[in-house]
Protein backbone atom coordinates (compact mmCIF):
# COMPACT_ATOMS: atom_id res chain seq x y z
CA UNK A 1 0.00 0.00 0.00
CA UNK A 2 1.37 3.37 -0.94
CA UNK A 3 2.22 5.74 1.85
CA UNK A 4 1.21 9.39 1.93
CA UNK A 5 3.15 12.06 3.72
CA UNK A 6 1.34 14.91 5.35
CA UNK A 7 1.63 17.46 8.12
CA UNK A 8 -0.60 17.43 11.16
CA UNK A 9 -0.19 20.26 13.65
CA UNK A 10 3.25 20.97 12.27
CA UNK A 11 4.35 17.37 12.63
CA UNK A 12 5.52 15.53 9.50
CA UNK A 13 3.94 12.13 9.39
CA UNK A 14 3.23 9.37 6.93
CA UNK A 15 0.06 7.36 6.65
CA UNK A 16 -1.23 4.54 4.51
CA UNK A 17 -3.15 5.46 1.43
CA UNK A 18 -6.80 5.21 2.27
CA UNK A 19 -6.26 6.06 5.93
CA UNK A 20 -8.43 8.75 7.41
CA UNK A 21 -7.04 11.90 8.97
CA UNK A 22 -8.20 10.52 12.30
CA UNK A 23 -6.24 7.27 11.79
CA UNK A 24 -3.16 9.19 10.79
CA UNK A 25 -3.39 11.57 13.74
CA UNK A 26 -4.01 8.78 16.22
CA UNK A 27 -0.97 6.86 14.92
CA UNK A 28 1.09 10.01 15.36
CA UNK A 29 -0.11 10.43 18.94
CA UNK A 30 -2.25 13.45 18.17
CA UNK A 31 -5.65 13.37 19.85
CA UNK A 32 -8.66 14.68 17.97
CA UNK A 33 -11.87 14.79 20.02
CA UNK A 34 -14.54 12.39 18.75
CA UNK A 35 -17.91 11.26 19.95
CA UNK A 36 -19.68 9.31 17.22
CA UNK A 37 -16.51 7.53 16.11
CA UNK A 38 -15.96 4.03 17.44
CA UNK A 39 -12.94 2.01 16.41
CA UNK A 40 -13.94 -0.88 14.23
CA UNK A 41 -17.32 0.43 13.13
CA UNK A 42 -17.80 2.48 10.00
CA UNK A 43 -17.87 6.24 10.49
CA UNK A 44 -20.81 8.53 9.86
CA UNK A 45 -19.30 11.96 10.47
CA UNK A 46 -22.25 13.04 12.59
CA UNK A 47 -20.93 14.59 15.80
CA UNK A 48 -18.74 17.20 14.06
CA UNK A 49 -16.28 17.28 16.96
CA UNK A 50 -13.44 15.93 14.84
CA UNK A 51 -13.66 18.74 12.28
CA UNK A 52 -10.20 19.92 11.31
CA UNK A 53 -8.77 22.70 9.17
CA UNK A 54 -7.06 21.61 5.98
CA UNK A 55 -4.88 24.17 4.20
CA UNK A 56 -6.32 25.21 0.85
CA UNK A 57 -9.84 24.03 1.64
CA UNK A 58 -12.17 26.61 3.09
CA UNK A 59 -14.53 24.06 4.57
CA UNK A 60 -13.86 22.27 7.81
CA UNK A 61 -13.53 18.53 7.21
CA UNK A 62 -14.42 15.66 9.52
CA UNK A 63 -11.21 13.78 10.38
CA UNK A 64 -13.07 10.49 10.72
CA UNK A 65 -14.29 10.30 7.13
CA UNK A 66 -11.72 12.35 5.22
CA UNK A 67 -8.95 10.34 3.58
CA UNK A 68 -5.39 11.56 3.68
CA UNK A 69 -3.82 13.06 0.57
CA UNK A 70 -0.20 13.60 -0.27
CA UNK A 71 1.04 16.90 1.10
CA UNK A 72 -2.04 17.72 3.17
CA UNK A 73 -1.43 20.32 5.85
CA UNK A 74 -3.84 19.83 8.71
CA UNK A 75 -4.58 21.75 11.88
CA UNK A 76 -6.49 19.79 14.48
CA UNK A 77 -6.52 22.54 17.07
CA UNK A 78 -7.18 26.26 16.79
CA UNK A 79 -9.11 28.88 18.68
CA UNK A 80 -11.92 28.56 16.17
CA UNK A 81 -12.08 24.76 16.32
CA UNK A 82 -12.00 24.81 20.11
CA UNK A 83 -14.87 27.29 20.12
CA UNK A 84 -16.98 25.22 17.73
CA UNK A 85 -16.28 22.05 19.69
CA UNK A 86 -17.27 23.68 22.96
CA UNK A 87 -20.45 25.00 21.36
CA UNK A 88 -21.28 21.56 19.99
CA UNK A 89 -21.00 20.13 23.50
CA UNK A 90 -23.07 22.93 24.99
CA UNK A 91 -25.77 22.20 22.42
CA UNK A 92 -25.73 18.54 23.40
CA UNK A 93 -25.96 19.26 27.11
CA UNK A 94 -28.86 21.65 26.53
CA UNK A 95 -30.67 19.26 24.21
CA UNK A 96 -31.69 16.49 26.61
CA UNK A 97 -31.56 15.92 30.36
CA UNK A 98 -27.93 15.24 31.16
CA UNK A 99 -27.77 15.31 34.94
CA UNK A 100 -24.26 14.06 35.62
CA UNK A 101 -24.82 13.99 39.38
CA UNK A 102 -27.38 11.21 39.17
CA UNK A 103 -26.11 9.37 36.08
CA UNK A 104 -24.95 5.76 36.01
CA UNK A 105 -22.09 6.79 33.77
CA UNK A 106 -20.86 9.65 35.94
CA UNK A 107 -17.08 9.50 35.80
CA UNK A 108 -17.13 7.04 32.89
CA UNK A 109 -18.84 9.18 30.31
CA UNK A 110 -17.29 10.38 27.08
CA UNK A 111 -19.61 13.36 26.87
CA UNK A 112 -18.70 14.42 30.38
CA UNK A 113 -14.96 13.98 29.91
CA UNK A 114 -15.00 15.77 26.57
CA UNK A 115 -16.84 18.65 28.18
CA UNK A 116 -14.22 19.21 30.86
CA UNK A 117 -11.25 18.50 28.64
CA UNK A 118 -12.51 21.10 26.16
CA UNK A 119 -13.06 23.63 28.93
CA UNK A 120 -16.85 23.77 28.96
CA UNK A 121 -17.60 25.25 32.39
CA UNK A 122 -21.28 25.96 31.81
CA UNK A 123 -23.94 25.83 29.10
CA UNK A 124 -25.01 29.18 27.73
CA UNK A 125 -28.03 27.90 25.83
CA UNK A 126 -31.42 27.37 27.36
CA UNK A 127 -31.83 23.84 28.59
CA UNK A 128 -34.69 22.28 26.67
CA UNK A 129 -35.83 19.88 29.42
CA UNK A 130 -37.66 17.61 26.99
CA UNK A 131 -39.74 14.77 28.31
CA UNK A 132 -38.09 11.50 27.38
CA UNK A 133 -38.74 8.13 28.87
CA UNK A 134 -36.65 5.24 30.11
CA UNK A 135 -37.10 1.80 28.58
CA UNK A 136 -36.54 -0.67 31.37
CA UNK A 137 -38.35 -3.59 29.80
CA UNK A 138 -35.26 -5.57 28.86
CA UNK A 139 -34.13 -8.15 31.39
CA UNK A 140 -30.46 -7.17 31.26
CA UNK A 141 -30.22 -3.61 29.99
CA UNK A 142 -31.94 -0.26 30.16
CA UNK A 143 -32.18 2.68 27.79
CA UNK A 144 -32.52 6.19 29.13
CA UNK A 145 -33.40 8.50 26.25
CA UNK A 146 -32.70 11.52 28.42
CA UNK A 147 -28.99 10.80 28.16
CA UNK A 148 -28.89 9.82 24.50
CA UNK A 149 -26.83 11.99 22.17
CA UNK A 150 -27.87 10.13 18.98
CA UNK A 151 -24.30 9.18 18.04
CA UNK A 152 -25.79 6.00 16.59
CA UNK A 153 -22.96 3.82 17.80
CA UNK A 154 -25.50 1.37 19.20
CA UNK A 155 -27.32 1.21 15.89
CA UNK A 156 -24.11 0.62 14.00
CA UNK A 157 -22.76 -2.12 16.25
CA UNK A 158 -26.16 -3.78 16.35
CA UNK A 159 -26.42 -3.91 12.57
CA UNK A 160 -22.85 -4.23 11.43
CA UNK A 161 -21.07 -6.13 14.19
CA UNK A 162 -23.78 -8.21 15.79
CA UNK A 163 -25.96 -8.30 12.69
CA UNK A 164 -29.11 -8.33 14.76
CA UNK A 165 -30.62 -5.10 13.49
CA UNK A 166 -32.58 -4.42 16.65
CA UNK A 167 -31.58 -0.81 17.19
CA UNK A 168 -32.72 1.86 14.83
CA UNK A 169 -33.65 5.53 14.68
CA UNK A 170 -37.14 6.91 14.43
CA UNK A 171 -38.35 10.45 14.02
CA UNK A 172 -36.22 13.31 12.83
CA UNK A 173 -34.49 16.43 14.04
CA UNK A 174 -34.53 16.91 17.78
CA UNK A 175 -37.36 14.38 17.94
CA UNK A 176 -35.13 11.55 16.72
CA UNK A 177 -34.85 8.64 19.05
CA UNK A 178 -33.22 5.24 19.24
CA UNK A 179 -35.83 2.53 19.00
CA UNK A 180 -35.88 -1.25 19.23
CA UNK A 181 -37.35 -3.13 16.29
CA UNK A 182 -40.60 -1.46 15.26
CA UNK A 183 -40.54 1.11 18.05
CA UNK A 184 -41.57 -1.35 20.70
CA UNK A 185 -40.40 -1.98 24.26
CA UNK A 186 -36.88 -3.36 24.12
CA UNK A 187 -37.89 -6.33 26.26
CA UNK A 188 -40.38 -7.46 23.62
CA UNK A 189 -37.82 -7.42 20.82
CA UNK A 190 -37.54 -10.69 18.91
CA UNK A 191 -34.30 -9.74 17.26
CA UNK A 192 -32.21 -8.62 20.24
CA UNK A 193 -29.60 -11.26 21.01
CA UNK A 194 -28.81 -9.70 24.39
CA UNK A 195 -25.16 -9.45 23.33
CA UNK A 196 -24.71 -6.11 25.10
CA UNK A 197 -22.56 -4.59 22.37
CA UNK A 198 -24.76 -1.54 22.24
CA UNK A 199 -24.28 -1.00 25.96
CA UNK A 200 -20.51 -1.32 25.61
CA UNK A 201 -20.52 1.07 22.69
CA UNK A 202 -22.63 3.81 24.27
CA UNK A 203 -20.53 6.86 25.13
CA UNK A 204 -22.94 8.15 27.80
CA UNK A 205 -25.29 6.67 30.34
CA UNK A 206 -28.09 6.20 27.83
CA UNK A 207 -27.55 2.45 27.58
CA UNK A 208 -26.67 0.72 30.81
CA UNK A 209 -26.57 -2.66 32.45
CA UNK A 210 -29.43 -3.04 34.86
CA UNK A 211 -28.54 -2.89 38.50
CA UNK A 212 -25.91 -0.22 38.04
CA UNK A 213 -26.48 2.90 40.05
CA UNK A 214 -24.86 6.33 39.98
CA UNK A 215 -21.29 6.19 38.67
CA UNK A 216 -21.30 2.41 38.45
CA UNK A 217 -21.73 1.99 34.71
CA UNK A 218 -18.08 1.58 33.99
CA UNK A 219 -17.51 0.47 30.45
CA UNK A 220 -14.72 -1.93 29.82
CA UNK A 221 -13.30 -0.32 26.72
CA UNK A 222 -10.99 -3.26 26.10
CA UNK A 223 -14.14 -5.17 25.31
CA UNK A 224 -14.64 -2.89 22.36
CA UNK A 225 -11.76 -4.58 20.66
CA UNK A 226 -13.41 -7.87 21.42
CA UNK A 227 -16.60 -6.53 19.92
CA UNK A 228 -14.74 -5.78 16.75
CA UNK A 229 -12.64 -8.89 16.43
CA UNK A 230 -14.78 -11.54 18.11
CA UNK A 231 -16.13 -12.81 14.85
CA UNK A 232 -12.73 -13.24 13.20
CA UNK A 233 -11.18 -14.75 16.29
CA UNK A 234 -14.23 -16.86 16.97
CA UNK A 235 -14.34 -15.72 20.57
CA UNK A 236 -17.89 -16.06 21.74
CA UNK A 237 -19.30 -15.59 25.16
CA UNK A 238 -21.23 -18.64 26.16
Amino acid at each position, binding site marked *: MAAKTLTIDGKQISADQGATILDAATDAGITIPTLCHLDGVYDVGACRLCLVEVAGINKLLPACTTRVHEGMVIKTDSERLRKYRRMTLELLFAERNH*VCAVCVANGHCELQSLAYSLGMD*HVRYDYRFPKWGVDNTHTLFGMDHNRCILCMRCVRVCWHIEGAGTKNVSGRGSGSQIISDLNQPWGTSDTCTRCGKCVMACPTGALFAKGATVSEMERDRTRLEFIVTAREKKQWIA
Partner: protein
Amino acid sequence: MDRLRVATVWLGGCSGCHMSFLDLDEFLIDLAGMIDLVYSPVIDVKEYPEEVDVCLIEGAVCNEDNLEILRRIRARTRLLVSFGDCAVTANVPAIRNQLGLRNDESVLQRAYVEGAQSNPGVPREPGIVPPLLPQVLPAHQAVHIDYFLPGCPPPADRIRTVLSQLLRGEEPHLEGEQLKFG
Protein backbone atom coordinates in the same frame (compact mmCIF):
# COMPACT_ATOMS: atom_id res chain seq x y z
CA MET B 1 -4.93 45.45 50.21
CA ASP B 2 -8.33 45.46 51.86
CA ARG B 3 -9.63 42.13 53.00
CA LEU B 4 -11.85 40.52 50.41
CA ARG B 5 -15.51 40.82 51.33
CA VAL B 6 -16.90 37.35 50.59
CA ALA B 7 -20.45 36.04 50.75
CA THR B 8 -22.03 32.68 50.10
CA VAL B 9 -25.68 32.00 49.48
CA TRP B 10 -27.81 28.89 49.51
CA LEU B 11 -30.61 28.90 46.93
CA GLY B 12 -32.36 25.79 45.62
CA GLY B 13 -29.85 23.09 46.50
CA CYS B 14 -29.06 20.48 49.08
CA SER B 15 -26.36 22.48 50.91
CA GLY B 16 -23.85 19.86 49.86
CA CYS B 17 -21.67 22.56 48.29
CA HIS B 18 -21.51 24.36 51.61
CA MET B 19 -20.63 21.05 53.29
CA SER B 20 -17.84 20.71 50.78
CA PHE B 21 -16.80 24.26 51.61
CA LEU B 22 -16.48 23.21 55.23
CA ASP B 23 -14.32 20.32 54.00
CA LEU B 24 -11.65 22.93 53.30
CA ASP B 25 -10.55 21.98 56.81
CA GLU B 26 -7.48 23.89 57.99
CA PHE B 27 -7.57 26.14 54.96
CA LEU B 28 -10.68 27.61 56.58
CA ILE B 29 -8.42 28.95 59.30
CA ASP B 30 -6.14 30.61 56.74
CA LEU B 31 -9.18 31.90 54.94
CA ALA B 32 -10.58 33.45 58.08
CA GLY B 33 -7.43 35.48 58.30
CA MET B 34 -7.72 36.78 54.75
CA ILE B 35 -11.41 37.47 54.12
CA ASP B 36 -14.43 38.98 55.73
CA LEU B 37 -17.34 36.60 55.44
CA VAL B 38 -20.13 39.14 55.26
CA TYR B 39 -23.12 36.93 54.42
CA SER B 40 -23.57 33.15 54.48
CA PRO B 41 -25.76 30.36 55.82
CA VAL B 42 -22.95 29.66 58.27
CA ILE B 43 -23.03 33.13 59.86
CA ASP B 44 -25.91 35.04 61.33
CA VAL B 45 -26.47 38.01 59.03
CA LYS B 46 -30.04 38.58 57.86
CA GLU B 47 -29.62 41.24 55.19
CA TYR B 48 -27.28 40.92 52.22
CA PRO B 49 -24.85 43.83 52.59
CA GLU B 50 -23.62 46.34 49.99
CA GLU B 51 -20.18 46.37 48.39
CA VAL B 52 -19.45 42.66 48.41
CA ASP B 53 -16.45 41.51 46.38
CA VAL B 54 -17.29 37.86 45.73
CA CYS B 55 -20.37 35.75 46.26
CA LEU B 56 -20.48 31.99 45.89
CA ILE B 57 -23.94 30.92 44.78
CA GLU B 58 -25.09 27.46 45.67
CA GLY B 59 -28.30 26.11 44.23
CA ALA B 60 -30.61 26.64 41.32
CA VAL B 61 -33.15 29.42 41.03
CA CYS B 62 -36.37 27.63 41.95
CA ASN B 63 -38.75 30.18 43.39
CA GLU B 64 -39.42 33.88 43.48
CA ASP B 65 -37.51 34.22 46.70
CA ASN B 66 -34.39 32.77 45.04
CA LEU B 67 -34.80 35.10 42.11
CA GLU B 68 -35.25 38.18 44.24
CA ILE B 69 -32.22 37.54 46.45
CA LEU B 70 -30.08 36.65 43.44
CA ARG B 71 -30.95 39.92 41.73
CA ARG B 72 -30.18 41.81 44.92
CA ILE B 73 -26.87 39.96 45.17
CA ARG B 74 -26.05 40.84 41.57
CA ALA B 75 -26.65 44.52 42.28
CA ARG B 76 -24.47 44.53 45.37
CA THR B 77 -21.62 42.24 44.35
CA ARG B 78 -18.61 42.65 42.12
CA LEU B 79 -18.08 39.01 41.15
CA LEU B 80 -20.54 36.16 41.21
CA VAL B 81 -19.40 32.54 41.13
CA SER B 82 -21.84 29.76 40.35
CA PHE B 83 -20.92 27.31 43.05
CA GLY B 84 -21.74 23.69 42.27
CA ASP B 85 -23.84 21.96 39.62
CA CYS B 86 -27.22 23.24 40.82
CA ALA B 87 -26.16 26.82 40.23
CA VAL B 88 -24.22 25.94 37.05
CA THR B 89 -26.67 23.56 35.35
CA ALA B 90 -29.83 23.65 37.56
CA ASN B 91 -29.02 19.95 38.06
CA VAL B 92 -31.38 17.85 40.21
CA PRO B 93 -33.82 20.65 41.17
CA ALA B 94 -34.47 21.14 37.44
CA ILE B 95 -35.66 17.59 36.97
CA ARG B 96 -39.13 18.97 37.68
CA ASN B 97 -38.78 21.02 34.48
CA GLN B 98 -39.24 17.79 32.53
CA LEU B 99 -42.81 17.78 33.76
CA GLY B 100 -43.38 20.81 31.56
CA LEU B 101 -44.49 24.30 32.46
CA ARG B 102 -47.00 24.75 35.30
CA ASN B 103 -45.62 21.79 37.18
CA ASP B 104 -45.54 23.77 40.42
CA GLU B 105 -48.97 22.59 41.58
CA SER B 106 -48.20 18.92 41.05
CA VAL B 107 -44.85 19.31 42.79
CA LEU B 108 -46.50 20.92 45.82
CA GLN B 109 -49.19 18.24 45.87
CA ARG B 110 -46.54 15.57 45.90
CA ALA B 111 -44.57 17.22 48.68
CA TYR B 112 -47.29 18.47 51.00
CA VAL B 113 -50.24 16.19 50.33
CA GLU B 114 -49.25 12.82 48.89
CA GLY B 115 -46.07 12.61 50.94
CA ALA B 116 -47.50 14.08 54.13
CA GLN B 117 -47.68 11.84 57.16
CA SER B 118 -49.88 14.23 59.07
CA ASN B 119 -51.80 17.41 58.29
CA PRO B 120 -51.74 17.10 54.50
CA GLY B 121 -52.31 20.41 52.71
CA VAL B 122 -50.30 22.90 50.72
CA PRO B 123 -49.34 25.87 52.90
CA ARG B 124 -50.95 28.90 51.28
CA GLU B 125 -50.24 31.65 53.79
CA PRO B 126 -48.09 34.44 52.38
CA GLY B 127 -44.46 34.24 53.37
CA ILE B 128 -44.51 30.53 54.17
CA VAL B 129 -43.68 28.86 50.84
CA PRO B 130 -42.48 31.29 48.19
CA PRO B 131 -44.25 30.79 44.84
CA LEU B 132 -42.34 28.39 42.63
CA LEU B 133 -41.07 29.63 39.28
CA PRO B 134 -42.56 27.91 36.21
CA GLN B 135 -39.09 26.56 35.41
CA VAL B 136 -36.05 26.01 37.57
CA LEU B 137 -33.15 28.05 36.17
CA PRO B 138 -29.39 27.82 36.45
CA ALA B 139 -28.10 31.00 38.09
CA HIS B 140 -26.63 32.40 34.87
CA GLN B 141 -30.04 32.41 33.22
CA ALA B 142 -31.32 34.76 35.89
CA VAL B 143 -28.38 37.15 36.24
CA HIS B 144 -24.93 37.51 34.79
CA ILE B 145 -22.44 35.15 36.41
CA ASP B 146 -18.73 35.81 36.22
CA TYR B 147 -17.18 32.46 37.04
CA PHE B 148 -18.24 28.85 37.22
CA LEU B 149 -17.21 26.27 39.77
CA PRO B 150 -18.94 23.02 38.78
CA GLY B 151 -19.19 19.76 40.68
CA CYS B 152 -21.82 17.96 42.70
CA PRO B 153 -20.53 18.94 45.09
CA PRO B 154 -17.32 20.66 43.97
CA PRO B 155 -14.51 18.89 45.83
CA ALA B 156 -12.83 21.01 48.49
CA ASP B 157 -9.57 21.31 46.53
CA ARG B 158 -11.46 22.76 43.60
CA ILE B 159 -13.04 25.36 45.88
CA ARG B 160 -9.64 26.09 47.35
CA THR B 161 -8.17 26.58 43.88
CA VAL B 162 -10.75 29.19 42.97
CA LEU B 163 -10.60 30.98 46.32
CA SER B 164 -6.79 31.08 46.23
CA GLN B 165 -6.84 32.54 42.75
CA LEU B 166 -9.32 35.19 43.84
CA LEU B 167 -7.26 36.00 46.91
CA ARG B 168 -4.18 36.42 44.75
CA GLY B 169 -6.18 38.82 42.60
CA GLU B 170 -6.09 36.47 39.63
CA GLU B 171 -8.87 35.46 37.32
CA PRO B 172 -10.34 32.20 38.62
CA HIS B 173 -9.47 29.56 36.11
CA LEU B 174 -10.17 25.85 36.25
CA GLU B 175 -9.27 23.34 33.63
CA GLY B 176 -9.38 19.66 32.82
CA GLU B 177 -10.94 17.40 35.39
CA GLN B 178 -11.47 20.32 37.73
CA LEU B 179 -14.35 21.32 35.47
CA LYS B 180 -16.09 17.95 35.72
CA PHE B 181 -19.80 18.03 36.32
CA GLY B 182 -21.34 15.54 38.71
